[in-house]
């Protein structure tokens, strides 16, 4: 069924009798060419591109809970390609280009909104670092602008310019960045994959990975054994747990990241803003909620909930930056599990087990990567070769010393 405005009106006039399920709930088949473990954003996107771009018909996505229940179901919805390092920037820019045509490609309105992102700087040193980054972005074919204080004041008059502990000196703007409706992204990919024959199997937990003679044969699940030519694991947050089934240890820790939304408010913040002297970033959703977040809690956790100190830290940052949000109320907070890698960058690579591939280590930046991650993972699964923008995301880069450490924080996950 093709979605369009006309279709919506037609259904409205006929009592919404014609709508069909957005996707099937198929029974698992005995075997597939490709089994994707994880029905979150990255897994669904991988399946979508495997089917659409790489013409693969026998693909299954196995999801422990409901599709889209991973970090794509809970995040602050930011999309951007404002990275510094050559290992990262072309990949995220590729992702940005995929975002720009996503809705037409999936025929689903994921509300990709290119409202821009502004990273504020508060010192000359920070400005220089942002200039280096902005230049890297331009050199990789992305867009970037350096904003001075006057320009910034005109755009964001409500920031605390006059009484700040860490004065705002300017910002790095990426105008093509913005937000997307996170659930809509999962649903768009899921529906698109399902329409192309991908079996999305919900409530199907993988409990084991069957390996024979150094090669993967299939996966054990709560709904029985499923054979597979190739298995792609895309379960950020739980990567260590799942890969342990294949006997692998990963350079990843699982940490909790909290995010927050306020009660609905009339439009007030029309871009994404990040504070450069505290842990705070914010945007406003189409529904009117202020969506904001800050730092991870900082300790290993699989509990999907955080603690009060970080809640306070984030609110402190917000109040220091834009005291006009003070009388808005926090409505909801939630905590997701992040795959915090040892250099802050992801892994999209084959593993020592033949036919077993890994997509992991997204830290708290996985959402914006969804399209490129899916595309690059599909590319790797289908061709056996890394996509040209993802060649740096190797598993052996840690041992070899080819780290992609944007922050220069070293092997300390809670600092990335």
């Amino acid at each position, binding site marked *: 069924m093709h979605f369009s405005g006309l279709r919506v009106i037609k259904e409205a006039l006929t009592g919404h009798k014609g709508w069909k399920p957005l996707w099937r709930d198929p029974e698992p088949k005995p075997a597939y060419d490709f089994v994707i473990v994880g029905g979150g954003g990255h897994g669904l996107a991988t399946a979508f591109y495997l089917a659409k771009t790489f013409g693969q018909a026998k693909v299954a996505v196995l999801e422990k809970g409901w599709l889209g229940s991973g970090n794509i179901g809970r995040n602050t919805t930011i999309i951007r390609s404002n990275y510094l390092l050559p290992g990262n920037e072309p990949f995220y820019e590729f992702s940005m280009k995929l975002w720009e045509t996503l809705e037409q490609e999936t025929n689903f309105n994921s509300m990709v909104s290119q409202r821009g992102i502004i990273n504020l700087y508060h010192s000359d040193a920070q400005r220089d670092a942002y200039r280096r980054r902005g230049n890297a972005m331009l050199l990789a074919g992305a867009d970037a602008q350096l904003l001075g204080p006057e320009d910034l004041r005109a755009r964001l008059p409500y920031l605390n310019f006059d009484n700040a502990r860490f004065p705002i000196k300017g910002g790095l703007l990426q105008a093509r960045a913005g937000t997307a409706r996170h659930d809509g992204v999962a649903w768009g990919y899921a529906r698109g994959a399902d329409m192309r024959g991908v079996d999305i199997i919900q409530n199907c937990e993988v409990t084991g990975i069957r390996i024979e003679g150094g090669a993967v044969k299939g996966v054990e699940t709560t709904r029985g054994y499923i054979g597979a030519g190739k298995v792609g694991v895309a379960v950020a947050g739980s990567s260590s747990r799942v890969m342990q089934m294949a006997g692998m240890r990963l350079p990843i820790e699982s940490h909790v990241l909290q995010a927050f939304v306020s009660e609905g408010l009339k439009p007030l913040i029309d871009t994404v803003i990040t504070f450069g002297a505290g842990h705070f970033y914010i945007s406003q959703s189409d529904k009117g909620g202020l969506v904001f977040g800050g730092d991870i809690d900082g300790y*290993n956790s*699989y509990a999907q909930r955080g*603690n009060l100190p970080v809640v306070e830290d984030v609110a402190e940052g917000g109040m220091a930056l834009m005291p006009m949000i003070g009388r808005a109320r926090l409505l909801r907070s939630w905590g997701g599990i992040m795959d915090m890698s040892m250099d802050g960058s992801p892994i999209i690579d084959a593993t020592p087990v033949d036919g077993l591939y890994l997509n992991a280590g997204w830290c708290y930046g996985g959402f914006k990567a969804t399209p490129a991650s899916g595309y690059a993972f599909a590319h790797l699964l289908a061709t056996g070769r890394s996509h040209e923008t993802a060649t740096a995301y190797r598993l052996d880069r840690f*041992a070899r010393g080819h780290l992609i450490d944007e922050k220069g924080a070293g092997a*300390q996950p809670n600092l990335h």
Partner: protein
Amino acid sequence: MLIPHPLLGLRDAQEFTYLGDAALLDRPSPEGEGAEAAFCDYVFLRGNPAGVHRELWFHEQGDRSWLVVTRNTLTHEILGAELASKVAKALKGAAE
């Protein structure tokens, strides 16, 4: 969270800084062929269990002691805490 400090009793986790896997106490020998590989495992392949985890916390806003805290990462329940220096000494004693 509250950390049961072995000397000071329960203190708010906000006084502490987290480092991670207590295996970091067991720094490999810099000697020999496999030293580089051993260090790579030591630095990058840390324990990340969904369950009971032994981990290092620093009482930065307190007595400046490093603690080994045993905590369940699924529930955040804390099962115990010891001074890391004691654990490290025991580890060295066992190695010798």
